[in-house]
């Protein structure tokens, strides 16, 4: 699904060269934004989606319950698109798997914005699984071998996903 947005911004530049009048120069920049939106799994909407900050702040109340949030995609399984990692803030992220391995996301979705619906929890991921994820992410054998400890972190089982990409094409007059 594609949407087109036109944003016209006007910049006023004032020159004070004379006392009688000010010279005004107006520059207009028209920017066309193309928003591409694709859905995977159940047909969900963005309505009511939490921000990542709201999700973290409310986590104790929403854990193990149906929740919806929007966050940028940091990483995607490079083999099949069978998981992705969302950035929750500068330090924390959350691995998202898809319910019953029932759907997949594009392997090139990293850097785009995702809205996900499903159930969040904190869980421990064992070393073998972490190593498998690293393999899927295309990490070097050295990095894979360096994984020696299980990880306790946010995890999410999504029933539906919306992935949104915004492309800007500036057109100055």
């Amino acid at each position, binding site marked *: 699904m594609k949407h087109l947005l036109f944003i016209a911004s006007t910049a006023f530049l004032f020159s004070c060269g004379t006392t009688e009048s000010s010279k005004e120069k107006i520059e207009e920049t028209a920017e066309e934004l193309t928003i591409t939106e*694709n859905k*995977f799994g159940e047909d969900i909407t963005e309505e009511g989606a939490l921000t990542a900050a709201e999700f973290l702040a409310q986590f104790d109340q929403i854990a193990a319950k149906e929740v919806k949030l929007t966050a940028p995609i940091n990483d995607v*399984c490079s*083999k*099949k*698109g*069978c*998981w992705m990692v969302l950035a929750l803030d500068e330090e924390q992220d959350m691995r998202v*798997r898809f319910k*019953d*391995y*029932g*759907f*997949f*996301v*594009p*392997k090139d979705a990293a850097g785009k914005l995702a809205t996900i619906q499903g159930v969040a929890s904190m869980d421990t991921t064992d070393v*073998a*699984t972490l190593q*498998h994820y690293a*393999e*899927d992410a*295309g990490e070097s054998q050295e990095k894979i071998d360096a994984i020696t400890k299980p990880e306790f972190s946010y995890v999410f089982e999504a029933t539906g996903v919306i992935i949104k990409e915004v492309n800007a094409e500036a057109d100055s007059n």
Partner: protein
Amino acid sequence: MPLFSSCTDGSSEEDLCIEPIANAVNTNGDSELALLMRQMYLEAAQTKENIVCGEGNVTPAFIMALQEVHSAVPTDPSVKTPEFEAFNKLLIFQAKAIQANENAKISEFNALVYRCIDCHKRFCPGPIVRIKKLEIKPAAD
């Protein structure tokens, strides 16, 4: 035997000039083995229904699909190891054991499910959550 395709590391489809097969489930396309695994899942689910309802046994299509695993092109070519082949043979044996043991179909079918999970633990853990649902649990009293 994985019921679904493997997604462990190795060369990509592009490396082998293998075109992923477009389908509605995976927007990235799927390998021949991935599609075969999905077909096997459906056959395994039908087999479960046959056994639970007392209306039959393992479907011939399931055993045929298992026998095609050996030659199906995987997402990740590196999974076709001797270990993978051994799992495949073991699972064909186990599927035939369901046919052969009319009085122990449930336990033989569950053994097949557990072996699928063992193989997926080794090669591609993603589908395990779904495969576990194939297990035939004792009826509640």
